[in-house]
């Protein structure tokens, strides 16, 4: 039976670089048998055009010499990551990952485990010969206890090298796989069962039902140092004791084919709805003096959104603007700061080293940044912050009871809105009151009730500043 040619394989293996009908595998190697039963199934099921075979690194790196279907070579261990991508992007393809034990169970085990756990739509054919063949007979994750290899010359000692890995049993702990079976190609009855397993795995793919995993116990006479007959016997006697044959799972009846994709808008349609349509691109105005602002406080005080609000107001006036946050652990650790530049032409540095305007809502923020404010600049600080550090000469400091006012008005989280109003009243942003208010509204566009409330707070803060024209300011 196995001598018969199959149209699933190339007639002549010219991809090897010469006209040949012989594979590159050693006599008695299981790979040739597995290749052939996979090829037969692909041909008989009419799947060759649709099939993409991901070839691994190892002895079967040259699978593409033989299989007459689409072939892609993957990096060592990565076949199932590569196959995942094909499955996710070509929904009609039949995706197969063919891997040996080092590739699948050592360097690539996490990719195996994760692809199985996600239930990727692929058939995985795993040739387990308990040894590294191509690199010259080193220990595999599936090498048996006591087995002598180039890297376990005294025999695999489980106390030192660990026990052989039973991959089917590990994957059987996962929810997603549809089909898991271990077969063998050590003799003809076993090969017949292996053929059925291959067809089952491919049927699951044809029906779009999910992840199918078939492990083949496969002889490697060369690397285990036996003649082909003894190598087959080693598979049946020694390996099957460690790796019992049989079907561990078959959910192919219950599994549902995957749903077709829902229709979606085009990219321009989608971003057309998402865009801030009312805002045109910035317009150059060289007469406009560039303003550099810094906002700083604790996380939760709204300093980041205050900065965004000023930048949005600048956009409404078609100014160039940049917003740059502190980020990472600093942000999560409590301190928050952001920098905003408002300009009449393209902005160079978005980092604000010497702010014209500093808004501080916490003591650490004030002490860290106040010394950097440029001459002629303004510091607006929450009056709960004791300003023990003096501002540089020529810098105006305005202490605003933002937190107190916001709390007394029943909106303790809205102190930033009062700060925004102060920036408008103090005329330090170069932006109009109307734009600041519109930007404030826009920031609550999904919460109309809050927009109303914040407008009221904005007006309260203005009234307070008007009532305290000089009292809160110092130079």
């Amino acid at each position, binding site marked *: 039976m196995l001598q018969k040619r199959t149209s699933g394989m190339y007639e002549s293996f010219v991809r090897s670089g010469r006209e040949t009908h012989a594979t590159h595998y050693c006599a008695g190697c299981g790979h040739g048998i597995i290749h052939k039963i996979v090829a037969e199934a692909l041909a008989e099921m009419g799947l060759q055009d649709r099939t993409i075979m991901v070839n691994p690194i190892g002895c079967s790196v040259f699978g593409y010499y033989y299989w007459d279907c689409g072939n892609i070579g993957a990096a060592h261990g990565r076949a199932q990551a590569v196959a995942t991508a094909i499955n996710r*992007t070509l929904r009609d393809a039949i995706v197969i990952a063919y891997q040996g034990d080092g590739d699948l169970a050592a360097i690539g085990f996490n990719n195996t485990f994760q692809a199985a756990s996600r239930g990727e739509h692929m058939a995985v054919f795993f040739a387990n010969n308990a040894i590294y063949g191509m690199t010259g007979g080193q220990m595999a994750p599936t090498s048996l206890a006591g087995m002598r290899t180039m890297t376990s010359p005294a025999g695999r000692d489980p106390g030192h090298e660990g026990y052989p890995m039973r991959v089917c049993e590990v994957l059987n702990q996962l929810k997603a796989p549809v089909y898991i079976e271990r077969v063998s190609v050590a003799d003809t009855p076993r090969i017949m069962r292996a053929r059925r397993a291959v067809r089952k795995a491919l049927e699951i793919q044809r029906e779009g039902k999910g992840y199918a995993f078939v492990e083949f116990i496969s002889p490697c006479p060369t690397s285990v140092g036996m003649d082909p007959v003894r190598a087959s016997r080693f598979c049946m006697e020694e390996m099957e004791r460690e790796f019992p044959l049989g079907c561990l799972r078959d959910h192919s009846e219950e599994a549902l084919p995957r749903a077709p994709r829902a229709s979606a808008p085009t990219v321009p349609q989608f971003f057309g709805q998402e865009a801030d*349509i009312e805002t045109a691109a910035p317009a150059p105005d060289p007469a406009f003096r560039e303003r550099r602002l810094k906002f700083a406080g604790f996380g939760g005080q709204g300093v980041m959104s205050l900065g965004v609000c000023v930048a949005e107001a600048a956009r409404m006036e078609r100014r160039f603007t940049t917003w740059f946050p502190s980020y990472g652990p600093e942000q999560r650790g409590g301190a928050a700061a952001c920098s905003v530049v408002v300009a009449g032409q393209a902005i160079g540095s978005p980092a604000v080293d010497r702010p014209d305007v500093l808004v501080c809502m916490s003591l650490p923020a004030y002490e860290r940044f106040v010394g950097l404010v440029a001459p002629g600049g303004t510091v607006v600080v929450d009056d709960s912050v004791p300003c023990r550090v003096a501002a540089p000469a020529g810098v105006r400091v305005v202490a605003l009871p933002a937190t107190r006012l916001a709390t007394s008005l029943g909106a303790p989280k809205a102190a930033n809105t009062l700060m925004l109003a102060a920036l408008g009243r103090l005329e330090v942003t170069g932006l109009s009151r109307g734009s600041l208010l519109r930007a404030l509204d826009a920031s609550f566009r999904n919460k109309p009730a809050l927009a109303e409330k914040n407008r009221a707070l904005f007006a309260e803060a203005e009234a307070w500043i008007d009532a305290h024209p000089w009292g809160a300011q110092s130079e």
Partner: protein
Amino acid sequence: MTKFVKGNEAVVIGALYAGCDVYFGYPITPASEIAHAAAQWFPAVGREFLQAECETASINMVYGAAAAGRLAMTASSGPGMSLMQEGLSYMAGAELPGVVVDIMRSGPGLGNVFPEQSDYNQAVKGGGHGNYRCVVLAPASVQEMCDLTVKAFSMSFAYRTPALLLADGLLGQMMETLRLPEGELPRPETRTWAVEGTAETRRNLITSIFLDVQTQEAHNLRLQAKYAVMERESYCETYQCEDAEVLLVGYGISSRIARTAVEALRAGGVRAGLFRPVSLSPFPAEALCACAAGRRVLVVEHSVGQFRDDVLFHLAREGRRYQEVGLVNRLGGIIVTVGEVVEAARRVLGS
């Protein structure tokens, strides 16, 4: 139409307008917003998003999708980029297109999450094994985070080699006004080489193994010939160079700081100009040499002279000496201040 977005979000908008089919990625600061935006926007327009189990998986997924003729991308930073180098080498070897965004952070090792430009050599010289080159583009604004992502896809497919968008934490995190692209890129022709699960593409083969030494050498030489053609497509930007006595040279965020420094220097009576490579690979070497002729040069970067070495290499062909090229830089996530650049430029002129 405009949108006020972070640089990291602009990347995703650019990718979608470029026709990117799929995003694979693993979270890392300061690149994570790219994955956040992709997770939201790719499925919204019927494209695929998948969080990979690690960066080696991400890049090999990009490899797999590219081998299947799809437009794929990933993004990462620092340690994640290092993990991807083997995959990039495989992509270059198998001549697969795809886009990788590097939002550089400070290293080596875990370093921190603040901006640096210390992945320059890794990106520009081909950080994996073998003789290969990637396209490397260096945006300097949120607009370019989008536009150069589009460009990265088109160049990557034109030359069938991976393209990197080399940005940093500051560019990724900052917000600016983005003009949305005019339209989508036309879909590249892939059927002549990709394996797409069709009768037409069944005999195509994607691999980078050539066991025969002659064949492997020929493959290498063919790649080099391809890179030589690619070399002609370099991009740069100049600012106030016409009458400059000192030329600042910087890419990405460093060029933004240098631009402000040019203005500050000119306000103080020093005629400064800026040369900014937009593509780092191919490097706009001729344009740089022409621009630097007869001028003092100051390199602004956020690494230990990795970029200056290339500037020196190109200028040396014109007979310029090491001493004529100054360097101002900061490391560890500290941004060079405009004041530091101004001071260094005055030093370079005075020397």
